């Protein structure tokens, strides 16, 4: 008679998680804790008990690898199918890809930077719970960078503006907006980074930053990007939870943390909000088939979910909505019009194209923005006449930039639609210019940090960008003919028409 060996006792999920994560932690005996974790005191945050950090997901490394491998397999199957069936021809229009160019040049490199900083947190936070959560997020972020690059690489075979995106991210004027935003977070301490990226970027603004790109993809026939969006979604909900857990943990540990956290919320709401100007114009102007207006997105994802939801909960801790949020709410009526007007007149120096909105498009904008768009429509009417006379509105020079957000200073006073905000501070005898009270507030608290800003216009004038003339600077940017400028008549537009004519005459593609 044989006796079957007893099956090994299976641990419960909770016990297993504990054994594979927190149980692997130890107290240092050769060195003091401050020497092992040297970066968690200088910001002034007080933590009494790291074990109070809750881990709602209870993920382990083996489970993580298994889930992610399955998701990647599905994504890569879609990418292969799309490439083999010439799926790019079923997009709404080649101009849709301007949104994806912006995403690849501006956002994907930030995923990589997020990976780096979460890896740093995974080493340097004192508690094993937040260290492990940071490790998972660090892995997510590098996967997102890689899968985004793979997803969009197919378009690089057929369309301009997708090459050299990393090179451009480090050099080009409009990409200095997202780059400097993230550099600001990377050079902060670990707790500020958690509020900046974990909370403000991944929780407060995430639905305004990522959802519009992914919905835009699904509305415009971009199956690969949409699939990437789905594949990232479960990670994103984990990131949101980490962000929320981080802020609650800091607030519950010590009352002295509250004013520090409040200042970081003020700063990082405005920093992140300024970056969303790129999203606003993408939603209202770049997508051939519209998902929703910026105003609708802002009302739903920010005013309803954050102002009426999150900040009601945070009031319990003594946290108030971010400073200058009232200005962002006013700007929802015109942010996208101003942001696209900037990109339109500088797109000869960009790796995406722009075009005057069609009458139908302008009618849609009038419906969405009955109080403000009619004013901006007069600008487009002037441009239409200009085009009829053989012109095209491209600026013949360089714009004034904001020292903090680095966006050309095209945002206006709330009460005067055509008067740009001019703000300035003088520090150690030097003047600095700002686009808003929000950006001035940020500078005034950390002038020594922000006076180091690498402002593209100031650097061009110092001779640090390859040449003193535009063609030379564009070469230094690695831009090629066809990358930027006017969309109509551009190589992408011409190819698109040719390929579709071919498909029609051969009865399909």
């Amino acid at each position, binding site marked *: 008679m044989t006796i079957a060996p007893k099956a090994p006792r299976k641990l419960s999920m909770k016990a297993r998680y504990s054994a594979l994560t927190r149980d692997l932690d130890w107290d240092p005996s050769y060195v003091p804790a401050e020497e092992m974790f*040297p*970066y968690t005191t*200088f*910001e*002034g945050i007080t933590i009494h008990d790291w074990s109070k950090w809750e881990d709602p997901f209870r993920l382990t490394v083996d489970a993580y690898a298994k889930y992610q491998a399955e998701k990647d397999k599905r994504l890569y199957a879609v990418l292969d199918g799309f490439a083999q069936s010439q799926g790019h021809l079923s997009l709404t229009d080649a101009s849709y890809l301007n949104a994806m160019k912006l995403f690849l040049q501006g956002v994907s490199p930030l995923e990589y930077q997020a990976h780096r900083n979460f890896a740093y947190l995974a080493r340097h936070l004192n508690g094993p719970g937040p260290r492990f959560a940071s490790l998972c997020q660090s892995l997510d972020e590098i996967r997102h960078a890689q899968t985004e690059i793979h997803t969009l690489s197919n378009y690089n075979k057929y369309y301009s503006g997708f090459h050299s995106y990393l090179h451009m991210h480090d050099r080009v004027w409009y990409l200095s907006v997202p780059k400097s935003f993230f550099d600001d977070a990377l050079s902060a*301490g670990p707790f500020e980074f958690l509020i900046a990226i974990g909370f403000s970027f991944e929780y407060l603004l995430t639905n305004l930053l990522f959802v519009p790109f992914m919905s835009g993809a699904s509305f415009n026939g971009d199956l690969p990007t949409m699939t990437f969006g789905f594949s990232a979604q479960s990670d994103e909900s984990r990131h949101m939870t980490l962000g929320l857990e981080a802020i609650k943990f800091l607030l519950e540990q010590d009352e002295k943390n509250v004013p520090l956290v409040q200042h970081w919320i003020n700063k990082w709401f405005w920093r992140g909000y300024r970056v969303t100007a790129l999203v606003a114009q993408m939603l209202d102007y770049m997508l051939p088939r519209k998902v929703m207006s910026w105003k609708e997105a802002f009302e739903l994802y920010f005013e309803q979910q954050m102002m009426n939801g999150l900040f009601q909960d945070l009031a319990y801790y003594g946290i108030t909505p971010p400073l200058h949020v009232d200005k962002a709410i006013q700007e929802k009526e015109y942010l996208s019009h*101003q942001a696209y*007007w*900037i990109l339109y*007149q500088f797109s000869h120096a960009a790796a995406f194209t722009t075009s005057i909105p069609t009458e139908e498009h302008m009618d849609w904008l009038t419906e969405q923005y009955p109080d403000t768009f009619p004013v901006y429509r007069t*600008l487009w009417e*002037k441009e239409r*006449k*200009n085009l009829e*006379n053989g*012109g095209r*509105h*491209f*600026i*013949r*020079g*360089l*714009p*004034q*930039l904001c020292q903090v957000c680095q966006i*050309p*200073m095209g945002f206006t*006073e709330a009460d005067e*639609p*055509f*008067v*740009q905000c*001019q*703000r*300035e*501070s*003088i*520090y*150690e*005898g*030097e*003047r*600095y*210019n700002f686009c808003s009270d929000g950006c001035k507030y940020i500078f*005034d*608290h*950390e*002038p*020594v*940090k922000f*006076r*180091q*800003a*690498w*402002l593209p*216009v*100031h*650097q061009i*004038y*110092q001779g640090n960008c390859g040449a003193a003339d535009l063609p030379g600077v564009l070469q230094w940017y690695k831009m090629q003919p066809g990358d930027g400028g006017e969309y109509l008549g551009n190589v992408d537009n011409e190819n698109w028409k040719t390929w579709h004519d071919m498909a029609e005459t051969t009865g399909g593609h």
Partner: protein
Amino acid sequence: MTLQDTITPPPIQSIGEYSFPSRSAQELYGDDMLLHVWWKGNPWFVAAASFRAPQAMPFGAFWEALFVPYHEEDPDFDASKGWDQFDWFLVNGRDSTPITPSADATLADLGVSHKGVLGFSTR
């Protein structure tokens, strides 16, 4: 020209000494400066223009060499009417100080300093 500080920042929280110079300081431009030229109330130009110019550049030369080539991209701008078609002022946030340009007055004489905003509006 020395400008009076307008802010007093809180102490810096950092892991070591933290003191780095400005990447846009006037010294980096030799005898030149950066100036911002802002057509207030004209939305055709989405933002003020930025120029690098000698501090000793006479306003007349500035008008010819920098101002007109940039602004004549606006179909409604008529350079032949000269600079008297505009009111000119120095900008400080929402405040401004009127100035009266003349061909021989240098930019510095007019009170324009590094990264200052030279504003003008249609009369």
